[in-house]
């Protein structure tokens, strides 16, 4: 705890909320909302993002062993989530925080729930499931303590991001994730989100083409692709560079040893050589801290690598929504055409029924009446469906676009901060290098 900094910046949360409220109000006028958005608006107006009420942290990680679903012994890690009301802390009483243990799979469940329930929001990502972009010193093993520690920080970051999101922070399932240890899983499943998830997944995986793609979303999707590609490249280069830098520093440690051996056969030069050797050892050892700091920067990049994915998901889901609208509209049009044909007796579109009726004789007037009636009902239903889907689509676009704007600002701010801290880290590394070599130079000049 306290070893690694979370990428989440508390200050940004304050900044982020203000513009969001304004833009939400702007979009509010004269447009329908779905229930959850309405609630959120009320909460936001009251200024009660969860993080304002409650301190959240992922304090510890522990190994557990138990039986899994197929009754096999398994080892897994659990993370301690601590929550504490903000007021209590400021009063100075410092009460013991409430806490519960959760494992990674439960975090995944929470996120999947949020993805399905808020398809129009850019849902914060989880830290990586498996260690990627590793360089040789870094372990790819999920059980490795360094990996677990970085995951702990990533999970805390995830919770803070959700808790500061104007819409997600007021979700009840999220709240109970933080506060109810037992029975939470059941509560989630009771929402029935799984069924929605499965159908959505099926639809998303199928290939479909939208007739009139929304330009803005297409551009956003393209941006997401490019961001993902460039950050992956950057992380790959970084991993290779880290390996090499490690080598450069560590080999200097050999100077330490040989200077020490050499000093033993020298008279006047001995002392200078010996002390210089110690500085070479210090130089070699300093690379561990440097690379750990760099790992933090890599984690910040990784978060946005996964955020890019979340952004693309929103665009994809919008496409699906639009596609479904188009399908409903298409279906309605064809049904209307069928009615017209039946009413006027002209066949404009080819249909198997038409052909068979030609071959085997026309229908009876009674049969026609029945058909017409059915079609009328279907058309009524179809018009309702189109209205619904149209409203859905419009809502989706409005809400999604608000969140995308919010995300853009957050991303620009966070990445700029990340670059600044990277530059500061490089500066510190250079200064340390200058100091060590100056020390060594002093020793050499005393030879």
């Amino acid at each position: 705890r306290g070893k690694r900094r979370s990428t989440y910046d508390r200050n940004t949360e304050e900044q982020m909320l203000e513009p969001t409220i304004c833009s939400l109000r702007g979009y509010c006028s004269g447009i329908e909302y779905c229930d959850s958005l309405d609630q959120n608006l009320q909460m936001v107006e009251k200024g009660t993002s969860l993080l304002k009420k409650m301190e959240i942290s992922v304090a510890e990680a522990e190994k557990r062993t138990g039986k899994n679903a197929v009754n096999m012994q398994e080892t897994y890690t659990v993370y301690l989530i601590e929550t504490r009301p903000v007021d209590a802390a400021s009063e100075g009483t410092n009460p013991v925080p409430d806490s519960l243990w959760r494992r990674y799979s439960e975090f995944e469940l929470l996120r999947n729930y949020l993805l399905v329930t808020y398809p129009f929001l850019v849902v914060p990502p989880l830290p990586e499931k498996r260690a990627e972009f590793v360089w040789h010193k870094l372990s790819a093993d999920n059980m490795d303590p360094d990996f677990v520690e970085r995951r702990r920080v990533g999970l805390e970051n995830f919770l803070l991001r959700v808790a500061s999101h104007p819409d997600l922070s007021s979700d009840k399932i999220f709240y109970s994730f933080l506060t109810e240890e037992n029975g939470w899983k059941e509560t989630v499943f009771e929402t029935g989100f799984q069924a929605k998830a499965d159908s959505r997944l099926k639809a998303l995986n199928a290939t479909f083409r939208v007739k009139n793609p929304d330009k803005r979303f297409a551009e956003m999707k393209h941006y997401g692709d490019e961001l993902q590609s460039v950050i992956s490249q950057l992380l790959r280069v970084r991993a290779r560079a880290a390996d090499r830098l490690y080598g450069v520093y560590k080999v200097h440690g050999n100077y330490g040893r040989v200077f020490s051996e050499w000093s033993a056969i020298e008279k006047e030069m001995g002392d200078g050589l010996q002390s210089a050797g110690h500085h070479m050892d210090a130089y070699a050892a300093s690379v561990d801290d440097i690379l750990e700091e760099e790992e933090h920067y890599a984690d910040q990049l990784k978060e946005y690598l996964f955020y890019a994915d979340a952004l693309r998901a929103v665009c994809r889901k919008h496409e699906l929504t639009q596609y479904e609208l188009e399908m409903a509209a298409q279906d309605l049009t064809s049904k209307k055409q069928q009615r017209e044909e039946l009413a006027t007796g002209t066949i404009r579109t080819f249909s198997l029924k038409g052909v068979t009726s030609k071959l085997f004789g026309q229908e009876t007037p009674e049969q026609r009446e029945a058909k017409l009636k059915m079609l009328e009902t279907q058309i009524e239903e179809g018009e309702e469906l189109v209205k619904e889907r149209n409203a859905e689509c419009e809502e989706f676009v409005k809400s999604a676009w608000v969140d995308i704007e919010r995300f853009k600002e957050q991303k620009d701010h966070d990445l700029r901060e990340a670059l600044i801290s990277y530059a500061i880290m490089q500066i510190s590394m250079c200064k340390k290098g200058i100091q060590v070599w100056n020390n060594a130079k002093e020793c050499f000049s005393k030879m």
Partner: protein
Amino acid sequence: TEGERGECNLLAPLRTLTTSVCLPIDCPPSGERNEAIAASVDGRHPLSSLYCRKRRTSETEQAGLILPNGTPVDTSSLASSSSLLNRLQLDDDLDGETRDLFVTVEDPKKHVSTMETYITYRVCTKTTRTEFDLPEYSVRRRYQDFDWLRNKLEESQPTHLIPPLPEKFVMKGVVDRFSEEFVETRRKALDKFLKRVADHPVLSFNEHFNAFLSAKDLNKRQGLALLTKMGESVKYVTGGYKLRARPAEFAAMGDYLDLFTQKMGTIDRIAQRIIKEQSEFLMELREYGPVYSSWSSFEEDLHDPLEGVSGCMSNCSSALEELTEDMSEDFLPVLREYVLYIESMKNVLKKRDQVQAEYETKLEAVVFREDKKPPVPSDVEKCQDRVECFNADLKADWDRWENNKRQDFRQLLTGMADKNIQHYEKCLAAWESLVPLLQDKQEAEGETS
């Protein structure tokens, strides 16, 4: 003596020498064969003391000394090296008044002919020595000529340690022989070489050195014609004699050189490895710039910061490239110079052993002769002189070498530290100039939003 470096205690060695010159002419009882022979080497042998007056004549005259018993001495055949002078003078403690020979290497120029391309350097000399016809000289010499000089010095002054030259061969693919940096590094090393020879009390009087500095055309075949009696008499017969006991001090030198060579080898390997790792790191570093640049191309607010980072990475790449080049061109060659130098020093030690072995063998044959007649053959006498001269020369040169080595390595390692410091300073400047750029934008954003 240790602990007294920096002080030029001129009288102490002088006292030692005068004492050893004037030993009482008593014959100690004949003891063990080896003991007797060993004793003869440092002048305590009864027979050697008979002829003590014949030693060190020219130098004592030069130094203005008179033997305590007042006897003038005949100049012996051997115009051997002035070990006494050696002990009196240390290279770097010579002040302007006593120095009478100044040499510099400057002004490298490229010469292109149909056969080859090569560099020449101007060698300038200023001197008041009578051995030179003129007070000033300016000649052009190429590396080959320096190499010739060093070989001649080794041949004609085998009892001395000849300073090192920069490496002869350089890997054509790796180092550019005509680059400014390489030529400058070489010039400095050649300058150091000539200055060390010029400051050496014996080597500086060598006629090959004189020719090198003064002759218009260095006809290297002249070397044979210039061989004087001195040269001939100095041609030691080596080989075939077995050494009984190497004096501790020379054994220590040999041991030291072996260990020292080992350490040089290790340092060379480490330096090469570092250069390799840095080159591979450089390859990765070079990839950063373009990636950040391409990222900036599809960002709006982040465009300038990302371009800034890209530029920074390029600067750091250049700085690292300079560092690795400098280490290749300046650091490694000097290490290798020393390894070659030590090889030649070990040869000198071997020759010394041979000279001593020859003397011991001949002396043994004489001492344990049946008739025990006083007249000792003159060639044994000459051998003894050779041994003593060699030892004295070597000891003095060894001290000089130790001092030079200390200077050389202090300079080399300080230089290495400096290069690394400069590298980090360049990177620091690049990153420091970027930070306000990133932060300013932020403030500006805050105002507009």
